[in-house]
């Protein structure tokens, strides 16, 4: 039933010593980058939103330093994804669109036809990934621009670098990205802990899924690992 061999699933993870019934879904570097970005985003949201709730502390330095760590982590993830992984696995194409519609029709009992099994990532996983990518990149770019207005060891602040109107647009994009992240993180954590999705949470912690999970949740012809 499972067409691919174990070796086909172990990519770039020399430390992976698995039982025969386990398959690598996320290699160590992918997991490390995911959790590092998660910690950075949570620290950034906490340091920016707590002062709004009248919890005052010196948050600016912690905020921009964490922002820089997030920027480096995101850049590493992008470069690693482009050069060392199969980027096609994460592309949201026409077939994903059809699968998403079919899933929604089945979910709401409009159609009895079950959705097709996905490849490595389901349409929903691809969409939340791309949503996080756009939102986090928007917050990084605007955050880096806003650093011009902060004194750092490398430069003195220059609040007049852009016009008031331009700064206003940058603030709006940064704020909107932050608020969207609140909603998206809530949904991401909720789905990660749902019983039927918990295998993906485990794979993001430990790296593996079982062969039976692979057979029941994925289409071997769509999960390319050659």
């Amino acid at each position: 039933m499972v067409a691919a061999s174990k070796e086909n699933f172990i990519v770039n993870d020399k430390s992976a010593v698995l039982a025969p019934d386990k398959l690598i879904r996320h290699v160590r570097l992918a997991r490390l980058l995911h959790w590092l970005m998660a910690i950075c985003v949570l620290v950034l949201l906490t340091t920016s939103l707590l002062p709004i709730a009248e919890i005052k502390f010196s948050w600016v330095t912690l905020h921009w330093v964490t922002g820089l760590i997030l920027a480096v982590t995101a850049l590493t993830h992008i470069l690693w994804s482009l050069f060392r992984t199969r980027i096609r696995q994460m592309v949201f194409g026409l077939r994903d669109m059809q699968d998403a519609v079919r899933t929604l029709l089945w979910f709401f009992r409009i159609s009895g036809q079950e959705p097709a099994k996905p490849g490595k990532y389901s349409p929903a996983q691809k969409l939340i990934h791309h949503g996080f990518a756009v939102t986090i990149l928007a917050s990084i770019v605007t955050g880096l621009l806003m650093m011009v207005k902060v004194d750092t060891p490398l430069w003195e602040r220059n609040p007049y670098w852009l016009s008031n109107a331009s700064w206003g647009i940058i603030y709006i994009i940064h704020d909107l990205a932050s608020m969207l992240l609140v909603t998206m993180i809530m949904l991401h954590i909720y789905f990660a802990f749902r019983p039927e999705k918990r295998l993906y949470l485990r794979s993001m912690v430990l790296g593996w899924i079982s062969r039976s999970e692979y057979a029941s949740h994925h289409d071997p012809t769509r999960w390319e690992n050659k």
Partner: protein
Amino acid sequence: MEILRYSSNAWGQKALEGLSWDLLWVFFSIGAVFIVLHALYMWLLPPKKTS
């Protein structure tokens, strides 16, 4: 509810400061309502898998 935040600069001009923090509750509520509705739906009317 305000959509945008403004402040006055040194010359008394109105300067855009970003989105109103009131909107934070809107985004939080959207997430919370989605989670509650999805959890209730999955509990009461779980989609049936044949395989």
